[in-house]
């Protein structure tokens, strides 16, 4: 029991830790500018405006929509 409790505790705590499954050095594809949801904030914001002015739906354009300053 003296050894089991620490073992269980370690197992539980390690179970709570989420390890990043894509390491920073594995993100070269994601860092490519073509992988941004929107590359140009002015242009994306304008198109959202065009749609929102003529359609009843609005919102949830996301960080990328609504015109984000995404890198």
């Amino acid at each position: 029991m003296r050894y089991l409790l620490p073992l269980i505790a370690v197992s539980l705590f390690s179970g709570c830790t989420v390890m990043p499954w894509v390491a920073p050095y594995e993100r070269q594809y994601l860092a490519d500018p073509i992988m941004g949801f929107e590359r140009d904030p002015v242009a994306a914001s304008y198109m959202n405006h065009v749609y929102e002015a003529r359609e009843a739906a609005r919102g949830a354009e996301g960080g990328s929509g609504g015109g984000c300053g995404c890198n």
Partner: protein
Amino acid sequence: MAVEVDVVATKFMRYWLTAGLLVSAYSSAAVLPEERADNMYHVYSGGGVTIDGPSILIRKNIGSNTSFSANYYVDMISGASIDVEATASEYSEQRDQYSLGADYLVDKTTISVGYTNSSENDYEAETVAFGISQGFFGDLSTIDLRVSYGSDDVFRSGDENFSDEAQHRRYALSWNQILTQKLIAELSVETVTDEGFLNNPYRSVRYLDPASGSGFAYQAEVYPRTRNSDAVAIRGKYRLPYRASVKAEYRRYADSWGITADNVEFRYTHPLEERDEWILEGKIRYYQQTSADFYSDLFPYLNASNFRARDKEMSNFTTLAFGLGVSYELPQRWSLLNRKNTINLYWDHILFDYKDFLDVTVHGEGTSITPGEEPAYNFSANVFRLFWTVSI
């Protein structure tokens, strides 16, 4: 006297245009937005209306933690949409919008604030916005929360006795998630509440009137003074086995006026050269919505209901959009400030197809079409965005 009837593209949602632009969210929370200057000319032309103007955005860091941005945007509106043709004469007007924003980066958290002012002869709008963005799970995930409050003053040209107000509150939450080395996804939800004068003060509904020569007449629209809406969207971007990417997006929308809507979009991005000299883009987007509970193309009689609308944006319709875009990075010898310069041109063609908004312009001298038997209205629009970007 020209009666300014149609306010096509601008009323009620103007405040959000750059509130979102300046209170930015990031695909990675732990970096400030890119320092850049954009100078865009935009034009929308369709349905008898042309709206064009510039949009200039400058973003610049001060120190390593703070980014400031400023945007100047203009809509110059001219022409006569079908609503104007039916009930009034052609007109022109201009809307000017100024926005300021700031982002402050602390560790993996970005705090953003923004202010927007929009002004035209019969409408004034101010919006303040606040956002916070937090990266976690080793920057695999980013949560972004944005809130904004807008306050509008509404007037009616030619009627000095009319003035009213409207308030808008928006609450948006996004979860951005890196799923694999080649796939990133985002889930967004947003609630909007509006209160005040929400309809266009110039627009009318038509009703059956046997005393009229055409068989129908017009009276003013009346909308409810509150509106709540919810939208949820999911989008993903995938890097293909060769250097290109595809984006897919779906959004579902519902509001307290009885309107539900869905839209899907697919986009393909393809660089021609490894150095990004040329980047090509193509997209297709489909949108559909149901009509508001109080919408009717033709009411049975005068004052037929407490609330009444015949605004085609409140009707049952679909839109189908195709888009093409090209970006070109200028050679060093032509580049301003010795920085990366790009020229970008995007063209979108949008088809609007209304199911229960009928084309009353078919009525004329010598025609004897029964009210309600007119053909459904449809039109197409072209949208161009031409802009020059300098990475500062």
